[in-house]
């Protein structure tokens, strides 16, 4: 650990060992991060994938007659979790859902680590399903996890509990989205 010290010589100066060693201390401070100034790293200097690890958006309806859980086509994000034990935030949303038959009931929307149905469910929100010419709202999904470094695929799943046709509405102006952030 150390902090950055400015360093310069004048023409003809023979720096002392202590002064030379400031360069080593500075080097060490950059290596462990302590020499990097507060607010010194501009957003433009961050790697594109430093915060947003991956995302997907879908702009056409997802239609299914499976009781579920069934993976929502397109709402899938493959990412590489960085080392350093950073937590990961997964957000997903879609505009609304309707069903074409059956009694009103409650289903769920989920975020999965891995394959929907056989992977690990990370989050679930209840969704209300009823015959309605209008879409019924679907709550946004969020999962806050601490995965080990390496490859991960997060998916959105739906459980409707009936084989009636259901339409998850997604359009170009109201897309379905999944996004994975390192926090």
């Amino acid at each position: 650990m150390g902090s950055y010290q400015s360093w310069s010589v004048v023409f003809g100066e023979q720096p002392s060992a202590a002064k030379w060693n400031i360069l080593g201390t500075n080097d060490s401070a950059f290596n462990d991060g302590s020499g990097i100034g507060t607010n010194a790293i501009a957003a433009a200097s961050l790697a594109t994938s430093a915060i947003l690890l991956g995302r997907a958006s879908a702009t056409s309806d997802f239609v299914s007659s499976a009781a579920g859980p069934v993976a929502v086509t397109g709402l899938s994000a493959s990412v590489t979790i960085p080392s350093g034990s950073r937590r990961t935030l997964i957000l997903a949303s879609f505009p609304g859902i309707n069903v074409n038959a059956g009694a009103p009931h409650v289903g769920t929307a989920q975020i999965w680590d891995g394959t929907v149905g056989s992977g690990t469910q990370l989050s679930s929100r209840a969704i209300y399903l009823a015959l309605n010419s209008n879409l019924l709202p679907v709550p946004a999904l969020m999962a806050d996890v601490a995965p080990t470094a390496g490859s991960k695929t997060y998916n959105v799943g739906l459980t409707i509990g009936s084989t009636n046709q259901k339409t998850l509405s997604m359009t170009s102006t109201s897309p379905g989205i999944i996004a994975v952030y390192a926090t």
Partner: protein
Amino acid sequence: MPIFNFQIKTSSIEASGSIEAKDEAEAQELLQEQYLPKDHGFADEKGKKLAQKILKIDLAQVN
């Protein structure tokens, strides 16, 4: 195993991220499997809208 950053665009899906694959061909195969629609047991007009094609896949190996 190598990691590839990717961007994929289909007629209705845009996605980006990174994926582990032994080579570029396998990465493309995995992405197509992941983002092309599956059969959800539904085949009327709305179901046909699921049909889409991959318009673009960009891959860049990062390790």
